[in-house]
């Protein structure tokens, strides 16, 4: 009976795993398509503006991100990723800090976040009068989201082979891979992919555990 329950659990886990894999593949395809569109639009922008007008000379080495990724622990110890606009604190961080600084005498100055001014639109790095293709590139990257190294070391295992390959072949000198153009929708896609991969990894380890247990219960089973 225990073996039967185990088998049922194994089956449902496998089904869930397959469902997650299918969802992951779908999201990766969308991300790949958006990123490829973005790179082609950048090539069009270089065609219109000049090859050296869209490159590393136009932006600073150190940048302020517009959007950050917050990792939090969800149920079953799984990490969940959430896209947050830079400079905005998560609710649980703001509450206690405010109470500690409240005073009775007159209005007080609550501490502002370190970067109080809005981060600059990355499009302005290349000038004010940029061609439509550069705006399209920004929109593509924003909608698709750029795949970056994520907390928990999941980046390398999650990164699509297609994306990393196209990135390396296009132009390592261009340095436009880290275009932090911050749209929540785009990065949310990347965050979802990370969460899915996390769940798949967890599912696989659960699967192995269940298979071991089953082997112990039914040593003669094939």
């Amino acid at each position, binding site marked *: 009976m225990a073996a039967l329950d185990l088998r049922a659990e194994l089956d449902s886990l496998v089904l869930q795993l397959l469902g997650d894999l299918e969802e992951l593949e779908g999201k990766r395809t969308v991300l790949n398509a958006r990123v490829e569109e973005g790179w*082609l639009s950048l090539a069009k922008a270089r065609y219109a503006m000049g090859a050296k*007008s869209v490159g590393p000379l136009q*932006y600073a080495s150190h940048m302020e991100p517009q959007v950050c990724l917050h990792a939090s622990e969800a149920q079953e110890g799984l990490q969940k990723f959430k896209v947050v606009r830079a400079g905005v604190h998560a609710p649980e961080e703001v509450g206690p800090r405010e109470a500690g600084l409240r005073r009775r005498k007159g209005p007080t100055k609550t501490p502002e976040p370190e970067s109080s001014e809005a981060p600059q639109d990355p499009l302005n790095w290349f000038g*004010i*009068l940029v061609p*439509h293709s550069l705006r399209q590139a920004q929109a593509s990257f924003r909608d698709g989201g750029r795949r970056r190294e994520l907390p928990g070391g999941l980046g390398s295992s999650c990164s699509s082979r297609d994306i990393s390959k196209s990135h390396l072949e*296009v132009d*390592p000198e261009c340095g436009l891979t880290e275009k932090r153009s911050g749209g929540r929708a785009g990065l949310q896609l990347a965050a979802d992919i990370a969460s899915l991969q996390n769940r798949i990894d967890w599912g696989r380890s659960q699967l192995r555990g269940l298979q071991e247990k089953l082997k112990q219960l039914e040593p003669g089973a094939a």
Partner: protein
Amino acid sequence: MLEGAELYFNVDHGYLEGLVRGCKASLLTQQDYINLVQCETLEDLKIHLQTTDYGNFLANHTNPLTVSKIDTEMRKRLCGEFEYFRNHSLEPLSTFLTYMTNEFPAQEVCTPCSQTLVTMFLRVQVNFHPVKRCSYMIDNVILLMNGALQKKSVKEILGKCHPLGRFTEMEAVNIAETPSDLFNAILIETPLAPFFQDCMSENALDELNIELLRNKLYKSYLEAFYKFCKNHGDVTAEVMCPILEFEADRRAFIITLNSFGTELSKEDRETLYPTFGKLYPEGLRLLAQAEDFDQMKNVADHYGVYKPLFEAVGGSGGKTLEDVFYEREVQMNVLAFNRQFHYGVFYAYVKLKEQEIRNIVWIAECISQRHRTKINSYIPIL
């Protein structure tokens, strides 16, 4: 008008005109482009380019070959050809070629191995007209100001500046806070001074104002070039004036299109339009009030030359306005070679070569990104 241009032109400029016509004949043909678009990798592209006039220009580059390296080497080659023309030219062709050099971006010919050659050029040019270097200087100034905004080190930017545009006051450009500081403290004794006089303001040098400054400088330069060609007269004026008028109108259209949805006001936009060309003055006034592409198209519909260009935008090929303007530019530059004894052939050759470089870089980008659907969106020249 001097009637005897055909009699005297070859005395001073015949050799160079012959040379530039020979160079024009070596531009890539349609068959060359067909071979290039069939390449699977950049290495294949390099092998196919070896069979053209480019030869082994990438021979010194080790793997991995990148689009950026291909672009740099092609531009270096073009610069070498241009420098040969300029160093062997006599007045007034020398001044004409100097005006042309504003078309080159600041990063041309800027490698350690070319520094010795450049130093020799500078020594040779020390007695020449100082306007010679102003075009590269404009690009260097804008590059330095942008670099200051991005908090890049002066050393890093200086390394990327064009050697022919160097001047002693260059390192101080990044400390200027307003264009008038820049002019009074730094540029007043340089050849850029005449072009700067139209761009003076007390505003701080932020992205918007650098953009305004760049466009106003270019406007001043273009107007000066047009005036030079017009005053020269003869076949050069007949060939160059329509080309420069088209360039002025193109700038007006592109500035208008790119300004939609930005912080650039209509008044500021109007100050960037060159004050010559088919659109000047009524068309420019209407264009300054345009708020979207359709309104811009309505302005173009008043001009027989521009109406078909705007109608070609979009369509099945997905052509942009820049694409149709490049096509028109190629047509005009090819036609320039139908007449003799004028300086327009030099301008036309350089422009056609730049288009060829854009074509090859586009094909290389499509190959490296494995995005072959748009690989045929280049503009054939011959």
